[in-house]
């Protein structure tokens, strides 16, 4: 096994181009588990932890946030919790403090597990993934087009994930996750919602209830059309229930050791209804203020 240790982004891209089978490693919280258990024996590890710039974030000229792929969840929570509240909530449910000190959104994207905690909020907030190769340069991939299958993404073998882009929240964002305890839990299923008051639309993300994380598009369209965006009225329970049904309809879950398909569909409906309730309460408070 080779251990490649680029110190610049250009070196990293060159190394990935020269050896596309090299497995990128940053926090190691997925990759090292596979190596420790001999599930995977890559020809090379491409250690990105010495690459300058990957673990920083900035506000771009257009006001969006550009967050380096290696920013650990612990820092997403403390440094970006106010601007990316949905992602920060999801980040708090990742593993344990030790894991959150190392694991990053870039790693979650690279692994592309349907159960990854960052995916639903990235989908709900319409994040865009910045990937790059030495040969073809930068590609900007909307989160909704990034996930292609179970642990398969739109990332090409010679590409690396550099950052994700997301607008600071303009409205309430919530995340909910079902698991057996609060810590160290892989999602049985999860759900994220983001209200975009300026456009009077809503974003959603369903996790661990289909081969890929995905948006519940019909549920989003339903909210855009049916919510009383003036904020004058409390949430109609029938509307919230219908939203839950539509969200569950977007799922295509399987039976596995963590839960049955039927349970997942039910839980997605409940989480969708609840997160909408929380978001709507916030929305009305802000509208009244």
């Amino acid at each position, binding site marked *: *096994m080779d251990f490649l240790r680029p110190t610049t982004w250009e070196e990293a891209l060159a190394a990935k181009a020269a050896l596309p089978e090299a497995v990128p490693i940053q926090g*190691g*919280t997925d990759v090292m588990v596979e190596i420790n258990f001999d599930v995977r024996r890559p020809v090379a590890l491409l*250690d990105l932890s010495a690459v300058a710039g990957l673990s920083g974030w900035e506000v771009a000229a257009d006001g969006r946030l550009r967050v380096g792929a290696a920013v650990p969840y612990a820092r997403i929570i403390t440094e970006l919790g106010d601007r990316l509240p949905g992602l920060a909530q999801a980040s708090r449910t990742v593993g*344990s*403090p*030790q894991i959150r000190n*190392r694991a990053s959104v870039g790693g979650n994207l690279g692994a592309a597990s349907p159960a990854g905690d960052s995916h639903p909020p990235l989908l709900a907030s319409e994040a865009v993934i910045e990937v790059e190769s030495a040969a073809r340069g930068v590609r900007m991939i909307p989160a909704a087009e990034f996930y292609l299958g179970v642990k398969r993404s739109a990332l090409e073998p010679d590409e690396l994930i550099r950052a994700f882009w997301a607008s600071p929240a303009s409205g309430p964002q919530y995340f909910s996750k079902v698991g057996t305890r609060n810590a160290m839990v892989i999602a049985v299923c999860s759900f994220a919602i983001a209200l975009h008051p300026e456009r009077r639309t809503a974003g959603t993300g369903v996790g661990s209830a289909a081969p890929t994380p995905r948006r519940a598009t019909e549920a989003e369209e339903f909210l855009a059309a049916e919510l009383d965006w003036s904020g004058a009225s409390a949430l109609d329970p029938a509307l919230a229930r219908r939203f839950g049904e539509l969200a569950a309809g977007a799922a295509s879950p399987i039976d596995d050791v963590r839960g049955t398909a039927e349970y997942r569909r039910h839980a997605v409906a409940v989480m969708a209804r609840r997160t909408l309730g929380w978001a709507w309460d916030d929305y009305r408070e802000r509208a009244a203020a």
Partner: protein
Amino acid sequence: MRVRMTVNGRPETVDGAWEGESLLYVLRERVGLPGSKNACEQGECGSCTVYLDGVPVCACLVAAGQAEGRDVRTVEGLAGDEGLHPLQEAFVEAGAVQCGFCTPGLLVQAHDLIERVGEPSDAEIREALAGNLCRCTGYEKILDAVRLAAARRKDEAR
């Protein structure tokens, strides 16, 4: 491969490390510091918790080469010349140690908590230790120990 790092304040050079091995393996088998424990090897149990550049991490999930040039502090580095760290004394006094296998990881993780948050609430202690499994104590004595250490630290600061 060769890995150079600082461990508990001492420069260490390790030769012949396999590229896929973990920092935990390097510490235990090559540097001769068996305090950090090897249990789950997947970041679930916290028994291998060490400081990497001042941040608590699971050493089993850090590739050896990723420690190059970095500063590692293990449970062996908590005690000073005058003996045990007050947190370690509190663990002994409170009965927070039974079989002892989880203790090194808990000590490093609790040490970080007390250093960052002078007077942690019970919720903060539970949250901080959520990634450290103990199968003996039922955790109550561990919580007692952390509370005791935090209270003494506060008294000393006065």
